[in-house]
Each structure stands twice: as C-alpha cells, then as structure tokens.
C-alpha cells in the first residue's frame, strides 16, 4: 500500500494553482490529505502531480461580514472545533467538528477538502447544507457561488469545473434564538455516518431547514420543512409519511436504511426543540 510515484508542488497563489490544474489534467489538489492520502496508498487515486494548496494565504483565513461567517477552504476541522480566529461566530459548527473522525484527522483535515471529497456519509455536507452555506469557487480569474447542497452532484463527484478550486465557505449567521441540532448515527465513535440529519429552526429569519445525509448522493435538503412537521418541531410532530417519498426519491431502498434516516431526523428534531439558544451572546 504505497502510492505510485508523483510530484508535489505548493503554489503560493490561487491563479498559479488553477493554471497547474489546467496544464496537468491528471493533477490532484491536496489540502489536509486525510481522504486523499489513503486513496493514494491504495492506488485508487493515481495522480502524477499533487497541487498542495495549503500555502495559499487566502485559503486559510476566517472573516466575518454583517450576515456571514466566511471560512477559507483550507481551515482545518480542528480549528473549527476549537472556535479559533472567530470560527465561533456560528457556534453550531464546533459541535459538528467535534464528531468528525478523530482529533488526529481533524488536525489536518480541512472543511473545504471534506466538501470536495464529496463523501455522502461525511458530516460537513449535511451540516453546512442545513445551515444554508454557499461555497465560492474560483479558477483564478473569476469566481462563482453555489449552495453547498449543489456542490456535490453525486457520490464523490462535484460541480467543480476543470481548474476550478473551492476557495471559501460562506455560512449565514443564524439569529440569536435559532435552534439547531445535528445527529449522526455511527457504529463507532469517529466512523462515517450510517445516517445523519440536521435541523435549523430560525423563526426570526423565517427558516426551518432540514438536511438528511449519508444517502447515495448529495444531502437531501428540505428548504421549507414546515410541511414536514404538523406542529412545533419535534419527533412527535414529524410527518413520517411525508418524508417517505423524499427518501425513496433519494434512493433509500431498504427498510433498515429508512429506519436509520427517520431516527436521525426524529432525534435531530427533538434535540433542536430542546436546544438552548444556539448563539452565544
């Protein structure tokens, strides 16, 4: 389990990284390498060139606008877990981060890398989709913005065009009274999810959004989830019959899978209902 021979470069700018990707069609981007590393060792990925983007200053910064937290693609999950450098502006994120794999992986693994790897069972796609996050992608010349839920097109596939790089993640700041939960069902601590679900209940912004992950493809995002609940958000008010066709359409075809997804969402609903005010004062 040793990789095929490859070169690595560590460009200092986005434009240079993008040029390298265009020039070398068999190049691969690497940030934390926590998913790519094993794939290289298993020879499932066989790039001739690795473009290490962790040296590009823009990609590791965290900033805040009036209504968004903006996270550089190469910010590590551990930094989010620790709430470093203003990452605590969206306090929901730390709780998600704390359950991604285990600390050694979080120390190197990046939020942007996880999104681009596009594993349906990962934590960030579901959680960020529920928070209504966008990603900003750039080819070094021009950029575009798409919702997280649209970045992942299918398992391990993204909407990134050749030469395009995920630069930033923009997370809307929730209201002070927003309620939130993220539930992940795993066989063991730190494993990929058998099922996961997130609920954001933010009446001040008129948002009740649900995301269900660990499906065959991208997370199932229900932008207006009021129709899923017969009353205030809770497991008891969840309309399972209304959810069933959505899960079917997302390719859930076994009874046990359906049970796991329903359990994840039911528990997320109950936990959201009982969660204290999500935002720190």
């Amino acid at each position, binding site marked *: 389990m*040793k990789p095929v021979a490859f070169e690595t470069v560590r460009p200092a700018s986005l434009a240079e990284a993008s040029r390298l990707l265009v020039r070398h069609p068999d190049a691969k981007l690497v940030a934390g390498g926590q998913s790519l590393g094993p794939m290289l060792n298993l020879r499932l990925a066989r790039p001739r060139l690795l473009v290490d983007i962790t040296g590009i200053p823009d990609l590791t910064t965290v900033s805040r606008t009036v209504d968004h937290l903006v996270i550089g693609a190469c910010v590590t999950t551990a930094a989010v877990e620790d709430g470093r450098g203003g990452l605590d502006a969206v306090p929901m994120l730390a709780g998600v981060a704390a359950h991604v794999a285990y600390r050694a992986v979080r120390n190197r693994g990046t939020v942007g890398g996880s999104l681009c790897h596009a594993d349906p069972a990962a934590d960030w796609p579901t959680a960020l989709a529920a928070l209504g996050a966008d990603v900003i992608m750039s080819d070094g010349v021009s950029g575009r913005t798409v919702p997280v839920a649209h970045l992942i097109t299918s398992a391990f596939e993204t909407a990134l065009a050749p030469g395009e790089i995920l630069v930033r993640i923009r997370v809307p700041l929730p209201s002070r009274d927003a309620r939130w939960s993220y539930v992940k069902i795993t066989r*063991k601590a730190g494993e990929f999810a058998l099922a996961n679900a997130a609920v954001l209940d933010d009446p001040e912004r008129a948002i009740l959004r649900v995301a269900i992950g660990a499906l065959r493809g991208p997370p199932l995002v229900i932008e207006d989830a009021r129709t899923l609940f017969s009353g205030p958000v809770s497991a008891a008010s969840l309309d399972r019959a209304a959810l069933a066709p959505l899960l079917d359409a997302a390719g859930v075809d076994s*009874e*046990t899978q359906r*049970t796991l997804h329903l359990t994840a969402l039911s528990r997320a609903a109950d936990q959201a209902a009982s969660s204290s005010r999500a935002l720190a004062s």
Partner: protein
Amino acid sequence: MSGKGVGASVPRTEDDRFLRGRGQYVADWRVPGTREVAFVRSPVAHARLRGVRVPEGCAGRVFTAADLVGVKPVRAITSIKGFKLSSEPILATGKLRFVGEIVAVCVAETRAEAEDLAEQVELDLEELPAVSDMLEARRPGAPLVHEEWGDNVFIETVEDRGMTDEVLAAPLKITREIRTARQCMFPMEGRGALAFFDARLRYLTLVSATQMPHIVQLGVADCLGLPDSAVRVISPDVGGGFGYKGLLCREEVVLGWLAQTLGHPVRWLEDCREHLTANANCREHHYVVTGYATREGRLLGVDCVAHVDAGAYSVYPTSAALEASMVASLIPGPYDFRAYRCRSAAVATTKCPILPYRGVGRTGVCLAIEAVMDGIAREIGVEPHEVRRRNLVRPEQMPYDNVMGRHFDGGDYPESLRRAVEGIGLDAIRARQARGEPDGRLIGVGVAIFCEQGAHGTTVLASWGRPVVPGWEQAIARLTVDGDLEIRVGTHSHGQGHETTFAQVAHEVLGVPFERIRVMQGDTLYTPFSTATWGSRSMVMGGGAVAEACRILGERAKTIGAWLMQADAADVSVSEGCVTSASASVTLAEVARAWYLQPQHLPPGVDTGGLEVTAGYRAKRDSGTFSYATHAVCVAVDPGTGLVEILDYVVVEDGGVLINPMIVDGQIRGGTVQGIGTGLFEAVPFDAQGQPLASTLIDYLLPGAADVPEIRVLHMETPSPNTTFGAKGIGEGGAIGPPAALVSAVNDALRPLGVELQGVPLGPERILEAIAAAARKGGDA
C-alpha cells in the same frame, strides 16, 4: 519477601521500552543493503492459472513458482484418520484458491517500487466459480477447491457418546441455528520478516514477527530443503499475536529463498490490506445444536452438527483439522450431562485459511451451548442463569471427567455464576427494565459461563494427531559472575509480559533480586526448542520450566555455598539471594565468584555443570488446566438505530494461582474487548465471487476505546493440583465469553418485541431487520 515473587502485581519490565516507543519490532531492524519485497496476489477467488507474464527487463527482480526450484509446498498434516491433505505451494501453480494467494514476488529498492513492479505482472487466468459459503460447499455438485478430494471436506469428526432413545424422547427439545462471522485477528503489528545470510555464523537468518520461532525455523528449513541447523529465527518484540502469528507463512519461505538466492537482505512488512484479506482469517462457524432437557431444565443430552469454514488450505502447524475437532470436543462446556452426539466438519472454501484465534473454537461453542441454555430458560420460564446453575458441574463432583473425557481439575462453577449475577446486579436491572427507559432504549442482561482447557500437554496433543507435539518444556537458568540471573525460554511473549512474570517465578525460587534477573526469548540461537506461545501454555509450561531450572540451580549453589561456610549441604537453604545455614550465609554472588574465578574454593566432586542449568517440565497430569469464568453484561439496545451500548460488564474468573494479578487483569480485559469485537463489530463478508468485502479498517470495525465499558474483574482462586504454584492457563478466556453474554443480553432486551437473534456480530442492520421482521410477524398474527 520483596513483594515481587509469585502473586505480586509487579509493573512490567518491558513497558519501559514499549511505552517510550523504544520497542524493537521487525520493522525497526536495520541491515545494510536490504531491499523491499511486494507480492503479486490473486485478484480472484478461484481460477486456473494458465500463465504469469513477467514484464520485459525484470529478470532478477520478479520471481514466480517456476523460479523456486526445489522449494517444497506447505503441507500441514495431521494423523487424524480421514484428513485430506492440502498442498499449499509457496508461489501459486496450477490453480488459485483465494483472493490474496501469492503468485509472484517482486524485489526493489523501496516498497513503492516493488509495488510498481507487481502491478506490471500479468496473470493469465481462467476463472472458476467461487465456493464462498461452507454450507454451499457441501452441496453435491459444488465446485471443488481441491479436485482430487472429490468433495470440499478436510475432515469430518463424529462423536457419539451415551445418546439413548430415552434422552431423545426428553420432554424439552430446544434447537438453535447459529452462525459466527469470519473475522480477522488484528494485532497492532501485522506480520513481517527480514531475511539475510549471516556469513559469520553461517545461518540463513529470519527476523520475523512470530509467536513461535522454533516452529518457523523447522518450517522454513523444511520447505527450502535445508537442515533446521542452517536456519536461525529471531522473533524480536512482537506487537500482539492472538494466534495470527502462530503459523508458517509462505512469505517467510519466499524471503528465505530470496535471501539465499540473491545474496542480499530482503524485507516484507505486511500492509493492512494483506493483513485483512490475504494471510489468515478466523472464527467462521455454523452450528445446529439441540439440547434435550427435563421440564425442570435439567439437560440430558446434546446433539450438534457443526461446520467450520477452514478456507482453502491447511496451515502449518495447527492444520485445518484443529478447530473443527475442538468444536466437537468442547460443545459440552462446563455442564454435567452424559449423552452427546456431534458431527463436525472442516470445510474447504475459496477463502484464505483460518487460524486459531484466542479462545479458538471455544468462543463459538460457548455461544452455541449458551443459546440452548437461554432457549430452555425461555421455554420453562426461569431466569437464564438459573438454568445454567441447574446444569453446571458442582464443586463436590471435582475433579470431574465430562462426557468427552475432559478432566476438569477443580473449582466452583456455580459460585462463579452466583458472583457474576450478584456483581452485575440482576435484581436492580430487572427493576429498571420494568420501569422502562426515558430515551426508549431497551435494557437487557446476559450471562455466559465456560471453562477453558489450557496448557495442553503431550498426551492431549498427541491424541489430536499434531505433527509437532510439545513435550518437556525447557528453560535455561544461569548465574553470572556477579550473581545475576539469566533465564532463557523457548516460549515467546507477544505482549503477555513474560520478561516480568518469568522473572517473578525465578525470584520466587532463588530470591535473586527481581531487577537482576534477565529473561531472554525469541531467538533459536540461544533458547531451548519449544512449540512456543499458544494455547494459554506459557506460564504453566515455561513458568514451570523456569522454576525447575532455578530449583536445580539452587541445589548446585547450596553445595558450593555450604562448602564455603563449612556447613553441611543438607543444613542450608536458598532464599533471598543467599545460601543460608543456621549460623551464617553467603550470597549467590559469592557462590558465583567461587565457581567462575576462585575454583580452588570449590568442594571436591562439585557438579561440573556449574551454575548453568537446562531443565524440562511437564505438569504432573498433562491433560490441561481448566480455568473458568462467568461473563455478565448489561446492555441498552436502541430500537431506532439497532445500536447496542454496553452499560456494565463483569467477569468472574478463576485462573488458579495468579503469578501477576495485574497482568492477568490486563489479559482478561484485553480478551474481553476482543470478544466484544466478535459480538458486536467484526466481520469479513465475502460476495458470491469470493471477494472479501472488508479490506480496509473503514469496513472492518474493531472495538475502540469509546466502545468499551469499564470491565470489572472479580477473582476466585482454585489452585491447579497439577502445576507448579497451582497456576492455570489464563490467556484466552476473556475472548470466549463476550459473544454468548452479549447475544443473551440483547435477546433479553428485545424480548418484549418478540425478537430472538442468533449469531454474531450483532450489528445495527441485523438488529433492525430482526425488529422489523418481528413487527411484520406480529402484524400478521
């Protein structure tokens, strides 16, 4: 006393280097000029190998079976009647019989480059249908793994003792069908070997992560056509074994051949994929077991049909017969009944061979017989532990020869059960169940009791038809000039702490300060021949040998010491590192100086063997020691996720006299965690084409720290009447009880839903499916 002899929880000597990262494992050895090896392995489960195309320009770097002229295949035979021989070529010829079988070997400067070479080797294959399932393999017309056999059965064992029409007509007849998953033993360190020719000592030297250096020495020498005296095997620090490192590896033979042929050192370190798929798996059993009992739940007899999936080949030295014949002999467990029938078969499939894993057949067997006990309890409406109690061998029956002639050497099995039931707090759990859980989970409690034959001696192993039968286990004890003590043993610690415990034994006998005793092991050059470390034998056998060698050494020291003190040898004793008479004493260092440096002071007629003794040991009765234990577990089952959380775990263990109770507790806890792995997590599934579906640790789940409860260990102590100090083999027990206890507990939890699960592991999908099936059934009714 110093508090460091037998019975003391002395901190482990070896931990200083292990915990500081200074252990010396195979991968830490450096020999200049070493090249790395990668293997070309079969990508398919079953195929005719029509040819191997080595890429141009790779001569001298890639080798196939055609190059290994004169190298003999691995043939693990047993003299058990009817056993069919499998011949496992070192590099495949003719046919490929499992995914991962070695076809060619590549040598390069680095492992990555060796893997580059391996990718270029092309195999010309004619695929054959796989035989992935042991029951399918027995059907007429199933594809044959070894055509010349005519079927897929290595061996079938039949036991029939005392079964009568009366027993068969018993009022209760409880049948359970149980399957255990194929697992992979997963020591932290995988396999690995480094081979080179030592020109000075003229040995082909193999540094290998093995539990049994002398057996590997014999096996490698035999396959390469060398005398065993031409091969030296060094087994340095070994990072866990559990049985995984208890066989001769084809890779070891290949490395030996390469080192001889190429004239430079070669090294192979097993990677995780090779570990999970290609070397050896374990534990895959199938049982249909029936208990015949009275209305009071008293067991009258047991009938069993058992299958063991032995994989494609018989491994050396244990052979494919071992596990199935153990299963047949162990089903009766710790219970008292006199009618028994069992038909067990070791079945060949197109999967990698199996090896005995900690507990060997006992883990599955315990699950099978305890399922019958639970079935009887359900039928007659009493607590499961009560049914067990009614059937256990009682202390007044000890020593007890069971229906299979196993000689239980002592103990109080019902008391062990009672303490476990009390320890887990059964009454409080029943009350909690009646209240229900606020989070909707279901609580369950389970128990399992077993006894464990360990340290099997010559008589037992000879009767099993083993090609290598252990005899007098030997140890060498030597007093150095300064009065320090060197101990050499042929057993090999792969984590058990023998450097500590054998030193405790020597300290107990001679009183040489614990810190001044050095235990040496793991090198065929300077240790006595031994079948080494397996079957919970090292402390009983190796420890017995150390004690005996030290005792004889003490006698020699007494003769010299008495002469130095001008006392009569009959009036002196050895203790606390001195030879002592009524009025004086001399230290062992003074005795040693007399022997080595001042021989003019030695008595006339002194034993010219000096202060170095090789002594052998066999237990007074070598039918094995019988440790026993009860495992009790309380679980919470989540009907929404199918996940099982272990809330509490109690083990009540009787291992006789414990040499180092702290180490024993570690053994029990470690074994229990592995048993939890069997019960809840671990499985290597195969698809219909015989592809193993768990080839990374993403798919092969091992219990981690967060998945394991605090395991509470309670001890009983019934000394073995047959061994030095009354010690019993204790290394495997922890891994035997958990699957049975967990299945019992999960079934207890799910009983209100009408669910009864059989088999392991109890993963969430299996539990959710069973709950859904029970709901459908309930809905129909």
